[in-house]
């Protein structure tokens, strides 16, 4: 860990927090609820504050430079592309299921269904963004 920069440590912590909090989302998909999504958002915020504070305390040099900013931009670009692709795919699937009758658009669960799908997309895009940045630090830029 000593050879990692402050930003790299911060990214590894973010990835761990994302996997711990968001991981169950995909495995417990049948039990989704507004409370569960809200709980995850609060959970990720609390866990991030704890982990990032610990890293800030135990890292002497917190310098960031132009390479950090370039890698950050690269991460946001891949995150955006992932989110945009999933959005198109997700909307297409919702339209398809609604057309063939698998999804009742007038049912009371439609709001939760949309929330689940879009929250899942955000999670995947966020993890993609963080993972891309970690890979960029380890590879040629």
């Amino acid at each position, binding site marked *: 860990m000593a*050879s990692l920069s402050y930003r790299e440590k911060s990214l590894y912590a973010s990835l761990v927090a994302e996997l711990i909090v968001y991981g169950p989302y995909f495995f417990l998909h049948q039990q989704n609820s507004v409370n569960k999504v809200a709980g995850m958002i609060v959970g990720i915020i609390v866990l991030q504050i704890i982990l990032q504070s610990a890293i800030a305390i135990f890292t002497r*040099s917190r310098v*960031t*430079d132009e*390479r*950090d900013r370039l890698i950050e931009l690269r991460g946001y670009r891949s995150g955006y592309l992932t989110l945009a692709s999933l959005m198109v795919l997700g909307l297409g699937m919702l339209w398809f299921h609604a057309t063939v009758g698998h999804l009742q658009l007038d049912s009371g669960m439609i709001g939760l269904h949309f929330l689940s799908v879009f929250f899942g997309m955000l999670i995947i895009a966020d993890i993609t963004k963080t993972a891309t940045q970690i890979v960029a630090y380890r590879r040629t830029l």
Partner: protein
Amino acid sequence: MAAIRNQIRELRALRGMTQQELADQVGVTRQTVIAMEQDKYSPSLETAFKVAIVLGVPFEQCFQFDPRGKR
């Protein structure tokens, strides 16, 4: 081979300077100095000039452009 190559490692060693010392004087992280020395990162023009100034050599002695190299 990278399009922009440099002699940072050799020039730094000649001056007995550590990667951390060079990084501190240039205003970048040690990891960025490592990436530059391994030709894995081409710095901005501003950072490249700072590196040359800190190492006390003309710019072209520190950095070279290879048009056949990949970017």
